[in-house]
């Protein structure tokens, strides 16, 4: 194939169609007799109380923020890692300095107690 990303696009389309085929087969072959008891929310036999879509623990949000910083920064490291053999030793040390700044950020979050699950 001339264009690799066209190939990936075709792969995506067919890759979505393939899981849908057994679902369609199931739609035609399986029985469909809904009733309120059957469709009630499963909670080990106890009637469910209140809403399911609730507010969640804010700690997840803080972890997500720390993650976001790191994930964006690690993407910058890929070009550096690729070109490592062609770089001057100065540029390699620059990359290491970059990682050290990242780790300083982690230490800051650590000392601030953001990583505690409390």
């Amino acid at each position, binding site marked *: 194939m001339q264009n690799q990303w066209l190939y*990936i696009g075709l792969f995506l389309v067919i890759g979505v169609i393939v899981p849908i085929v057994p679902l369609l087969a199931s739609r035609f072959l*399986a029985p469909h007799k809904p009733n309120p008891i059957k469709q009630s929310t499963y909670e080990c036999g106890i009637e469910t109380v209140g809403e399911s879509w609730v507010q969640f623990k804010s700690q*997840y949000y803080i972890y997500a923020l720390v993650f976001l910083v790191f994930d964006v920064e690690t993407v910058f490291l890929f070009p550096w890692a690729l070109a490592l053999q062609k770089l001057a030793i100065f540029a390699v040390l620059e990359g290491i300095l970059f990682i050290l700044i990242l780790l300083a950020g*982690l230490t800051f979050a650590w000392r601030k107690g953001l990583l505690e699950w409390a």
Partner: protein
Amino acid sequence: MTFWNDPINFLAEWLRGVFMGWGMAASPANAVTDIIGIVVMILFSMGIAILLVWVERKVVARFQDRLGPNRIGPYGLFQPFADIVKLIIKEDITPDGADKLVFNMAPVISLASVILIWAVVPLASKIYGVDLNVAVLYLVAVGSFGTLSVIMAGWASNNKYALIGAFRMVATMISYEIPMVVALLIPTIIAGTMSVKGITQAQSGIWFVILSPLGLLLFLICAIAELGRSPFDLNEAESEIVAGFHIEYTGMKFGLFYAGELLHAFTFGGFMAVFFFGGYGGFFGLEKLSAFTWLSNPFIQLVVFLIKALIGYWVIMWVKYSMPRIRIDHMLLFNWKFLTPLAFVLLMMTALVDKLLAPTNFYVLGMFLSNVLFAWIVIEILRAYSKRERSVTVEPAEPVAQAAHH
């Protein structure tokens, strides 16, 4: 070019000829051939997923001192087919109040995300979907779709257990993604390329597991966490939240989640083989000798790759069935206070040693010894830390049974 030394291109040429013979123009004939190739590749991966259902059930049975499936076909080999038929004819229940569109999309995305990874899996030097030059990044990006499907399933089910499972999965994903990417940077540094085929070829002399054993360990831990398998299976902890995110799924929709998880685990086994164990090749230069040229045959390479991937998959299963589940705060602390700093320091060390020793003769030895030294320092730090922890722990209270005797 014969069928035996280049099967895929041989068949593609032949198909193209057939289509042209029917009066098709060149470009639609190429497109149809490519589509057939993609369908074959996906069906091959689905075939592996079906086989894995049997492997997984048989292995877990052995770990738990049971027999496992043994009724249908020899050694129960046809059990997965019976399972598929059963799942297809089961009633599909959508719970009350579920977000129907998202609820139905989640299992499809779950399986599709794993299938998409197979576009870059190099099965042999001449059997692969596409040789992307950014395959490592592609692997990370596509892998995140699986997590997305878990969140969609958990949120759309309108079920508290499912929601808790989805939250935990988010926590696992966002935590272990970082050391995972760093672990993938290490083979990239050593090979100097992001193409999986290039990384495989870079290991024809020496496997990267020798150059960076800690990188492999890091990748294995993060792969298990990314898969949501034990000991990181908090997203479907049976004893607390029954089945977690897929609690409300029935019939074939559950089947898609199941197949997706198994295939994902196998794919990670395959990537362990590609990044650290030489993938389809890596015979230490043996294939250059005239007596061993048959090692370069695509079929031999395919078998070698599948064996290596199955061994990786088996290790993931081994961990899964031997380890108890850990608590969510322990899981997050283990990552943020241990794995992430460790990964970055390992990355710095690998980059420095690689840069300084690459032109010298001590490259392999230096890389290996620096890893050993690093591991020793980490273990010493951990030992000192646990000693300090032990000295501050108060004496446990007198056991109740003994107190009753007084």
